[in-house]
């Protein structure tokens, strides 16, 4: 039997759960409402009224390069971060002494505790000057590979520097998810591999990595989602452009959606704000798809994993 208070409490709790869904829906709805003036503007109106809007382009033509820049920066960050994270996760779960594992995990989590604006400051003032020789070397020796085509810009406020900082920023979340999965790898399989005479690496390759593959994929996608939406590090390091460019070592080539919003928003007029919200909507959809895919993979793994 449930009294009035009990029912009220249950409904309040359920309401709070439903409210979360409502908030997520509201994010989409209000973004669409505010983006509508820009989305429905007749051709030419945007570039007429907004001073930073490129001449003679439609909204889609404007968003295109931004999406490209966003994806490029995030993808390179992921390429840099992924092997490192898997290595760190393996180190914590299978190589480091058991008793140290928690502490080491905490050390990596500290990387996530540093605010993004501090990463931006560190990247912009400290890291950038130190990267110049490395990028110049890359351009000199691997210039035949189109993304590394020289000459490397100085100061290197380029997309590769940005991705390097982004890679550091997404390292903790990828590591955390991988670590969790590796720790769940069936101990019996590991012991069986070792008993058959496998070395530690062979054990990892045969028992841990195959088991953890879905987890690694979803970790990568979570990291990708983080990198796509990261604003400050990009804003404070990158010297932006608006091209569909693969050049990683030159300034003024790419820009990301998030950084562009933060850059233009404070000075934008109502139609400009509307345009920026339209780009924000694109970012929202991209990250939503990536995150939902990642979470779906994790959820499915939980259901079918017979290990526990």
């Amino acid at each position, binding site marked *: 039997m449930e009294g009035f*208070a*009990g029912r009220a*409490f*249950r409904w*309040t*709790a359920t309401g*709070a*759960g*439903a*409210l*979360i*869904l409502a*908030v*997520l829906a*509201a*994010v989409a709805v*209000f*973004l669409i*409402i*505010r983006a509508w003036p820009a989305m429905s503007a007749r051709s030419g109106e945007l570039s007429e009224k907004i001073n930073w809007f490129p001449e003679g382009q439609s909204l889609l033509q404007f968003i295109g390069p931004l999406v490209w820049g966003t994806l490029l920066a995030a993808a390179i960050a992921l390429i840099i971060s992924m092997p*490192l994270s*898997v*290595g*760190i996760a393996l*180190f914590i779960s299978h*190589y480091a002494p058991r008793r140290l594992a928690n502490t080491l995990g905490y*050390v990596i989590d*500290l*990387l996530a*505790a*540093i*605010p993004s*604006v*501090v990463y931006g*400051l*560190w990247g912009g*003032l*400290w890291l950038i000057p130190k990267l110049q020789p490395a990028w110049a070397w890359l351009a000199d020796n691997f210039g035949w590979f189109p993304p590394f085509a020289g000459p490397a810009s100085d100061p290197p406020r380029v997309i590769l520097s940005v991705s390097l900082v982004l890679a*550091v920023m997404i390292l903790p979340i990828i590591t955390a998810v991988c670590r969790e999965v590796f720790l769940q790898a069936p101990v019996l399989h590991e012991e069986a591999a070792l008993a058959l005479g496998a*070395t530690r*690496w062979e054990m990892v390759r045969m028992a841990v990595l195959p088991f953890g593959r879905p987890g690694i994929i979803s970790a990568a996608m979570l990291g990708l989602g*983080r990198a796509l*939406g990261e*604003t*400050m590090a990009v*804003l404070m390091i990158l010297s932006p452009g608006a091209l569909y460019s693969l050049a990683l070592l030159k300034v003024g080539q790419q820009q990301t959606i*998030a950084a562009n919003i*933060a850059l233009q*928003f404070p000075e934008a007029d109502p139609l400009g*704000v509307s345009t*920026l*919200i339209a780009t*924000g909507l694109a*970012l929202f959809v991209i990250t939503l798809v*990536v*995150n*939902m895919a*990642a979470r779906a993979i*994790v*959820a499915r793994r939980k259901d079918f994993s017979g290990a526990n």
Partner: protein
Amino acid sequence: MTTLTPTPAGPPDLTPDSTADTRALLAGMDTRRRVTDKVMTGLVVASFVIALIPLISVSWTVLSNGLDRFNLNFLSVSMRGVFGGMDAGGIYHAIMGTLEITALAALISVPIGLLAAIYLVEYGRGALAHTVTFFVDVMTGIPSVVAGLFAYALFAVVFGPGVRFGVVGAVALSVLMIPVVVRSCEEMLRLVPNELREAALALGVPKWLTVVKVVLRTAIAGIGTGIMLAVARVIGETAPLLITVGVIDSINFNVFDGRMMTLPVYVYRQYSQGLVPCNDPAAICIPTINYDRAWAAALTLILIVMLLNLAARLLTRVFAPKTAR
């Protein structure tokens, strides 16, 4: 895998020659495998060491560059009337703004997050609970700048375009904070042993009182820890506040009216103002004053975040023995 040629049945042929052959074969295989193992171990350890480089480098640069200006005066004055390369200015207004807006965000998100967690753990069955769990996870991935745009769009409907005040920023931060609070509270509530619930229910305590007086009371330390970590996560958010609360040089305590300064935005603002040209030799002018202030503010921000993290850990440690069973 080591593949050995199958030996014929019968007594093994143990001439000294064949033993040496087999040993050479095994040793030869083993060398390659052992080297691979050693190399991979090296790489795995190296990846951990590489990850430490940015951590140490960030901490060190912020500490060494920020300590110069980090003093009582810097913490207790605002930027009002400060211009050029003046050896003045501080972050009092930014600290106050950050504390107020973050506190307000916590005030909004903690009840919602906690209640949603209670729903998921104690009441949640069926499709709605599954959907909520899934979308809470998805919501943790919303880019912070989109949360800022959402809060702006929401308030612009009522207050018209160009809306900038503290509450808008607090709403933006709550969008980012709610999923984190739900996640950590849910985890803590699940740690409460079922026996406690069953004992309370068997004594005739209504379910809601069981939740409030037994489950919540048992998990309170963990919930406190989770909330503190959630606060630590959003207190460093910059982009949503830059969009919704804006920038100001003087002190504004009122979250319902007018722009406010916050610590992360202050760091960005000082950074983007860059070097100061010093042409007048008579006046006191520090070319790097903006960067110096940015470093000192970043140091303050990191100290606040670390203090919150430390407090959260201490809280768990202090209360851990009681909740362990």
